[in-house]
């Protein structure tokens, strides 16, 4: 494939082009009185109160769903858990056997609420708390997945061997970009991407978000220009996927991992200056790998233990409150049968 021109690459140049963009043909928005083009969600229809209401409703759903997706799986799970489980289940438990009891079933509602409010959120909040703590205790590189950490380790070792500790961050990112795009893009184009990565590497905390977006955008634009390349694992179908040494990753996640790694490990090696050697590199990586393994395993372990302990928290009543009002004898059906048999 023809090598790509560097001028085509920067995301910013595409963004700048927006200012000169032509407006789309507005005829597309005009309903001509013909049939609804397809089922259900017809949009951009300017007539009829019902359709206006439908459009408004759909757009509202669209906005909510976008917020949920932006928040990630955690938000999606919590929203589903709270709206779909906590509220309706507590409501049903509250009214369980209400006629028989002559009043709402407070005990059942309390049990149901306690169980549901503890189960769903704990599955995310506990691991999340562990990850936050790991950043403080072991540095941001402990947030990098173990398989990626191994690949980064190899790249750092190669970069260190090539040029000792001079411009380590630059050499590291140069090697990363080489691995990502091989010879599909020109050296000049690669340098533009390395520049973006270095800006992110050196960014102040308040700049990280914007610069991450910029690098992500540059990588996606590069993928789009390359189109489809099986060897590099790049496809127009999903240009937000990148491939590092055979491991496919989401571009956004990869950029975050790069920043987490380089701002911690690369800076630590660089800080050692002339004292840096291969032993130090090994020492740092072993430390980070051990930390990562410990954090993920204990996070999942703690969460599992807590989930197993939840019944102890909601089983405060000796008798199952779901049976309240169904039997005059507070004991269970089994006990009733046993008594019957004894007779």
């Amino acid at each position: 494939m023809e090598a790509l021109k560097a001028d085509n690459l920067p995301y910013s140049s595409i963004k700048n082009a927006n200012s000169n963009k032509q407006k789309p043909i507005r005829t597309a928005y005009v309903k001509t009185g013909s049939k609804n083009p397809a089922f259900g969600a017809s949009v951009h229809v300017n007539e009829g109160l019902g359709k206006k209401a439908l459009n408004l409703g759909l757009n509202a759903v669209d906005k909510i769903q976008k917020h949920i997706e932006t928040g990630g799986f955690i938000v999606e799970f919590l929203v589903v858990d709270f709206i779909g489980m906590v509220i309706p289940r507590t409501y049903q438990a509250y009214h369980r056997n209400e006629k028989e009891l002559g009043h709402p079933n407070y005990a059942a509602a309390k049990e149901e609420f306690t169980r549901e409010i503890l189960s769903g959120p704990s599955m995310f909040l506990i691991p999340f708390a562990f990850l936050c703590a790991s950043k403080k205790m072991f540095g941001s590189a402990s947030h990098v997945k173990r398989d990626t950490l191994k690949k980064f380790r190899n790249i750092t070792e190669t970069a260190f061997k090539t040029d000792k500790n001079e411009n380590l961050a630059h050499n590291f990112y140069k090697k990363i970009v080489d691995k990502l795009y091989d010879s599909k893009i020109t050296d000049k184009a690669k340098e533009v991407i390395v520049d973006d990565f270095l800006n992110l590497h050196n960014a102040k905390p308040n700049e990280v978000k914007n610069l991450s977006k910029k690098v992500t955008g540059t990588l996606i634009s590069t993928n789009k220009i390359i189109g489809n390349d099986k060897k590099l694992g790049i496809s127009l179908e999903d240009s937000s996927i990148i491939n590092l040494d055979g491991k496919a990753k989401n571009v956004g996640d990869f950029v975050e991992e790069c920043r987490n790694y380089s701002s911690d490990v690369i800076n630590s090696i660089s800080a050692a200056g002339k004292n840096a050697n291969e032993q130090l590199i090994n020492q740092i990586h072993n430390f980070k790998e051990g930390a990562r393994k410990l954090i993920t395993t204990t996070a999942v372990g703690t969460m599992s233990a807590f989930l197993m302990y939840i019944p102890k928290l909601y089983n405060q009543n000796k008798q199952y409150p779901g049976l309240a009002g169904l039997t005059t004898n507070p004991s269970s059906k089994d006990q009733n049968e046993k008594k019957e048999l004894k007779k």
Partner: protein
Amino acid sequence: MTIQSASSINNAIHSFKPGKICRTLSGIGRMIPDKVSDFCDLTTNASMKRTTQFAILAACVVLSRYIQARNDDEKREILTRDTGMLFTAVYGVPLFKKVASIFINKRTGIPIAHGEKGILKNINPEKGIQMASYEQLSEWLSVNSTKSFDGIKNGFTGFCVNIKKLGGNLIKCLNILDKNSKETIKNIAKSVGINEEVTNKNILKVIYKAEKSTDKGVQDNLNKLKELFVQDKNGMNPLLQKASNLKSATGFTCIAATAFVLGGLLPWFNIHHTKKLYEQNKAKNNEQPKILPANNSNIINKFELFKKTGQLV
């Protein structure tokens, strides 16, 4: 731009000197087998793999609650309620999204998912057909400006090839963008020497030939088509808006269906089923005293109980 070396920046604060406790903890971490830590691996958002999630829900939620249940009724309710939850959350919702994506694609011609088709390839919810993210939809179905096509391999043709490859029907997609697009395509086809009717099968040939053509009229018409994909000030075009709405409607349906099944149907079933069982039991108990005094024999009473319980007394 000059490239700064990281080694010259913020050096003083980044030397590698972990504390004793951290070193010990990391040492303990290194002893954990790789398979265990890989099973427990987390994403940057603190999410687990779906297989891990399934295993933990099955062992630590369903089984643990079952063992700690206070009586048989609670055990039965746990099995109904939590096994339903396990399969709906881990398999049901992704499966629904896969089916909905195929259905929407067939009905509207808009691609809103990607990935391999086939039952075997879709058994694992994380593999096979995946509903696109809003970002992906925006990349597939819109551009910032007509110049953005230059940043895509093979330009506008490459952009259209991708839509078709994803299962999209270009004729339908263009029709959603503009009702008059059919006429524009017809004109282009005539100008590039294709006299047959333009369908989804040969539209790429028309676009490819039009891109190669130097004729001003053809280029003008082609530009009209290109402009249809350009985003408005809200970052949308009618096609992207529709795709986005369909995706949102699917997501919303999933939440509503989950709420209905897990929050409504299963607990409702449990409550009513348990109630029914107790009512039946009560009715039987009320019948019993009438039968027992009639048979004033201890052996007959025991036989009646044996018939009821299946156990010798």
